[in-house]
């Protein structure tokens, strides 16, 4: 966790382990959030706030796609090992969601550039995350029309949580920026 305190320290820039430590620190944060969320019961299967994606978003906006992919990969892998869903259907859904979310993030982030802030990116990646998961769940696990009846509810939840995550990420980014400006 201490690695996250190293952000922006100049002498670390020279060290080749800087990125590794950033990834480790952010991944640790994301994993902690992931596990905390797993501990809370969900009113609807498949719906959870996905606050760990706040971390992915922050890393993407501050350090680029490569580190964001690393952090998300670590989170999915270690998170599933700790929660106990490694290589289960849940794990596959988790991977799918992460891949879809990162793809959407990269796509919209590249096209939109500075015009799109954390909230827009968060909503896009949240909807992509959910859509990817629903597709895989429908095609591989539950090819039943009843699942499709859930789609509007799941997408609504994804939209709301996407906005919330985006606002949290935007606030955190502002705070970080002010801290850096003051330094």
């Amino acid at each position: 966790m201490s690695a996250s305190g190293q952000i922006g320290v100049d002498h670390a820039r020279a060290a080749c382990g800087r990125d590794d430590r950033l990834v480790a620190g952010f991944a640790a944060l994301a994993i902690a959030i992931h596990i905390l969320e797993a501990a809370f019961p969900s009113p609807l299967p498949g719906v959870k706030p996905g606050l760990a994606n706040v971390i992915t978003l922050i890393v993407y906006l501050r350090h680029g796609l490569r580190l964001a992919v690393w952090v998300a990969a670590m989170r999915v892998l270690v998170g599933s090992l700790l929660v106990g869903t490694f290589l289960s259907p849940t794990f596959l859904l988790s991977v799918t969601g992460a891949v879809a979310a990162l793809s959407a993030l990269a796509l919209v982030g590249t096209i939109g550039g500075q015009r799109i802030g954390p909230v827009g990116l968060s909503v896009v990646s949240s909807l992509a995350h959910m859509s990817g998961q629903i597709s895989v769940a429908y095609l591989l696990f539950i090819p039943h029309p009843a699942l499709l009846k859930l789609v509007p509810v799941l997408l609504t939840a994804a939209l709301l949580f996407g906005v919330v995550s985006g606002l949290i990420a935007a606030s955190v980014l502002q705070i970080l920026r002010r801290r850096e400006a003051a330094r």
Partner: protein
Amino acid sequence: MADPGSQAGSEYPADPRPLIRGGDILILLLAAGLVGASFGAFWGPRGEGETALVTVDRSVIRELSLDQDGVFEIEGRIGLSTVMVDGGRVRFLDSPCPGRYCVHSGWLHRSGEVAACLPNGIVVEVLGGEREFDAINL
């Protein structure tokens, strides 16, 4: 402690950008439209039945179009049953069975709905459109 205006040359603009930008609002509108459309697409009107399949002792006797109103007599095991089609619905009007359960089933119009007269061996099933469930087991 932070004075954002004093560090204009830093990597991030000193002026904190607004939490929500113009592009974000555009994305929010598009996303809301998409989610709204998903309600229409997945919760839209179910397919109404299109035909009624009449079987006697498991062999198909005839397929009645629900568009064409009329009263049809079906020869069953123990006698004649009367089936009526009216305005996209179908029902048993009469049957020579003791309980008349088939008649009490009433109008059928949704795809997958079934009324059966077991003593007479006649089953009427609505076909076409999207089938609904008769039970969901979780």
